[in-house]
């Protein structure tokens, strides 16, 4: 029985296709100008998976995503969350089992900019070229 299982694992791993390469794009992660926190890529991952839910001052973090299918969101998911959208959906299904929902979405990067500029608890991302002085950039992803 054990040998049969080991043989199956070997076969399954061998048939798995190689990873696809992704073209990097420059993404800026933004917060409200009054938010002094610094974010590492790893901490950003924890925030967008909603494992880290509070800023250091104890206020709740409001992470914002773009809508599913947005090209920038797919880049962000791979670079920051290291997962494809189907894998993330599996993750969020497990969170839903505890009543935890994925980050809320906005329809455009302009909307993300406006929202983050107005909410001290929010964090969002957008193309680096769209950043203005109403927000603070805490991280640039290449």
């Amino acid at each position, binding site marked *: 029985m054990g040998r049969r299982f080991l043989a*199956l694992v070997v076969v399954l*791993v061998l048939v798995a*296709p190689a990873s696809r390469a992704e073209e990097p794009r420059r993404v800026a992660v933004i917060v409200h100008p009054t938010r002094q926190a610094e974010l590492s890529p*790893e901490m950003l991952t924890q925030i967008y998976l909603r494992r880290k839910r509070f800023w250091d001052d104890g206020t709740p973090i409001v992470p914002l995503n773009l809508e599913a299918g947005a090209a920038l969101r797919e880049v962000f998911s791979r670079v920051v969350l290291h997962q494809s959208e*189907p894998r993330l959906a599996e993750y969020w299904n497990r969170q*839903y*089992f505890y*009543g935890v*929902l994925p980050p809320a979405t906005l329809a455009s990067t302009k909307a993300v900019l406006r*929202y983050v500029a107005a909410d001290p608890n929010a964090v969002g991302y957008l193309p680096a070229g769209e950043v203005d002085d109403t927000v603070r950039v805490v991280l640039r992803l290449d």
Partner: protein
Amino acid sequence: MVASHPAGAEATEVATTPSREGPELFGIESPLGHIDYRAGRGLHLGATTLTIGGYTTADAERLEDGSSRGGLDVNFFLSADPVSFLHLFSEIEVGELVDWEGGGRPHVSPQLKVERMYGDASWSDGANLRFGKFLLPFGRWNQVLADPLLWTTSEPLIVEEVFHEEVTGAMLWGNVFPGGETLSYALYGSFLDRAVSEPEHDGVGARLEWTGRTGVSVGASYLASKRTDGAWNHLGGVDAFWQPHERVELSGEALVGEGAHADGGQWGLYAQAVVETIPTVYLVGRYERFNPPAGGRGIDLFDLGVTWVPTYYLRFKVDYRFADELDDLSAPGLRASFSVLF
């Protein structure tokens, strides 16, 4: 859940009210705010923060001993976040909504059960207090006990046979992030089981889980529970999860127990591999070994199946359990299910 925050005069040109994730199948403005239903993410009742969702599963099996059965269950989730530091959650099962056995006619005998009902009070990521009835945080499988979240129709014996699935009591839990990785802990006691007439489930336990940046996760669990004769059972376990490739998932658990409800020790393990062979179709294989207490015969099981996930809220499963014995515990045979997360 999240209010609109228009910034400046130009805000009128851009909608800045965040939406929930997922395709909106139904939406309406009401005095409660925006009410919407999203596939696999429930019905959200605007400003009340209440979300009503759940899942349903239809399953059928034909075992090697010639028996067959099938059924339909529905589980409802209710959750709310009335304030930022309080999360309320409940799962209510309507079991055996329809049930049939052998060649008999289906009969309807719905049974209501509160599977979970708890509140989480949060002070920080590292300090949360859960109070109520919740799933026992022992191992990995027991924390995702819902058909739409699992790859096979049946549970490993070490999850099904060794410990009680739920705890009624309190749990201190949290996450810390050393070096950007996640260390999760849980310390719990089931002292409230007395209130629901289940003194045999009194116990205390702990769980520690580390999740690395690459997605590797390992955990360790311990549970001490009091038997009806006043003596204590001790159960320890380790578990792991690894995604070596986007399309490959490996997981396993092992546990060992002393002083089980029956005399003597027990141990068991399972190892499971899941591979996405073509998009949305997954091949699943699982090996299990279980040595029950009281000198029972050791059992080897092998499950092989196919799971189709056409979209994130639908799951079709067909699997076959191979075993070297035809007893009730091994129960080899063909099983199938269809689940919808709603």
